């Protein structure tokens, strides 16, 4: 039994049932990392939210999402709340808005711990500070007492990472965790993410539009386009033997080292014009 089995997942929204995700199937073994890549609106985030059971109320979900054998689709909110943050957790894209501005960050991390472990406040504090240190924050004591606006984007994203990892979940979903960060900070955060995921032995569903980032963290990749999975395989297979023209475009644009000086840089459109474009 795989840790996460998604089969024939279809999500549509509203009365007109606009389909955001169509018949997506994949599986993820314990400790494995799967990159999900695709452009904006390709259904990456909707897939992630469906796995977490966090889709808005106007979403219609069909198909099946099984986490360690337990069906997620159609489960009650309270049953899901018990799993979220404990067995599975999520790292969000925007470090600027994913932390409550009115709460000290240490308390926000402690809250996750308290919700699932019922830890007493004194001991929770030690765990929180230790976790903040583990994700690479230089002065965890001070950071724990800070409000979000007193921290930089990179620091906040690491706090969010700490929130997601403090209960040692089996599955961590990262939704473009480094998109909002500048390149140097991005490299640092990715490195830490890699480290803590390995240390915790957690599986990861890593969403990104950046093939270079995905190849740095993941061994398996799945390419999404207009709500469907168009290609899946190992990172190596994708780079060497992509079959779908869209994937070939992605690979070409990520290999800037192959571009000749003075030549025009490749774009995805050179390979794949799209159906509606």
């Amino acid at each position, binding site marked *: 039994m795989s840790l996460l089995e998604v089969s024939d997942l279809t999500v549509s929204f509203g009365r007109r049932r606009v389909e955001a995700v169509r018949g997506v199937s994949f599986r993820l073994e314990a400790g494995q990392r799967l990159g999900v890549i695709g452009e904006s609106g390709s259904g990456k985030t909707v897939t992630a939210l469906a796995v*977490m059971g966090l889709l808005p109320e106007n979403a219609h979900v069909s198909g099946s999402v099984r986490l360690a054998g337990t069906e997620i689709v159609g489960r009650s909110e309270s049953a899901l*709340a018990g799993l*979220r943050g*404990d067995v599975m957790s999520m790292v969000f894209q925007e470090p600027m808005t*994913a932390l*409550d501005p*009115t*709460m000290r960050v240490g308390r926000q991390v402690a*809250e996750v711990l308290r919700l699932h472990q019922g830890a007493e406040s004194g001991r929770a504090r030690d765990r929180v500070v230790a976790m903040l240190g583990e994700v690479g924050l230089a002065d965890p004591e001070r950071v724990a007492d800070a409000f979000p606006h007193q921290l930089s984007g990179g620091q906040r994203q690491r706090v969010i990472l700490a929130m997601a990892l403090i209960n040692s979940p089996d599955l961590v979903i990262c939704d473009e965790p480094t998109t909002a960060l500048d390149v140097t900070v991005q490299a640092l955060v990715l490195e830490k993410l890699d480290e803590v995921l390995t240390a915790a032995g957690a599986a990861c569903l890593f969403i990104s539009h950046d093939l270079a980032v995905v190849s740095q963290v993941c061994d398996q990749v799945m390419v999404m386009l207009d709500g469907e999975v168009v290609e899946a395989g190992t990172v190596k297979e994708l780079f060497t033997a992509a079959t779908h023209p869209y994937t070939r475009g992605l690979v070409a644009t990520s290999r800037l080292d192959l571009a000749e000086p003075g030549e025009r840089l490749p774009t995805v459109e050179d390979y794949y014009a799209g159906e509606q474009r």
Partner: protein
Amino acid sequence: MKRAQLVIGLVLVGLVVVTAVVSIFWTPFDPVRVVPGQRLLGPGWPHLLGTDGFGIDIVSRLMVGARTVLFVGIISVGLAAVVGVPLGMLAGQAGGWVDEVVMRVADIVYAFPALLLAILLAAVFGGSTLTAMAAIGIASIPAFARVARAGSLQVIASDFVLAARASGTSRWAIAGRHVLPNLAPLVGVQASVGFALAILAEAALSYLGLATPRPNPTWGNMLRDAQELMWVAPLQALWPGLAIALAVLGFNLLGDGLRDYLDPRLREVS
């Protein structure tokens, strides 16, 4: 400029508060005892603003009036906030028919004239400070409910609430831990503006004799007494009128200043 608004508001409000507190322990003269020999003295010494038609020191009466106004404001705005904010949060959080019912009832209360409510309460219980507070408080509930509902909707749609849900926080825990603290600035601004309205309403009600009865001084019933002496001593109406105007201005400026100060978008622009 924005800062000046807040500072002037704070100074005026501070003045009212200090005056009210001092009046509990000390006033220059007895604010209710009639002194027949000293009727309608002009401004001077020792009666800085003169005396009224009963020979009572006007400064003393204004000071006690500030106390009444603050008391009525605090209780009525407090009542409105304590009832209105949870109702608004409930409407925003639950949505659907709960939202509809709560907000339509709020609309009905909002449409019902506050003055009529005050007359009703005064007719049943007799006009007193208490009925005035109740009437003003009930009439202010819808404003707080609306602010809280709009704010809740905004907070619930934010990333950090989604993040809290992704960590397993239940909806009700989110309401207490994330929504309420983020509503605090909005509610604070509304309270300040509501306070200004409460002062005006209290003045109007006691002017009409529907609130604090004489001989206890309020700015409203001082105005009423002054009206009868309009042709003899026109200055009599100026003092309570000025007090009302400055207090209302103070709370309005404080409310606007707070809004600008707390709104990060406006802060960046200025």
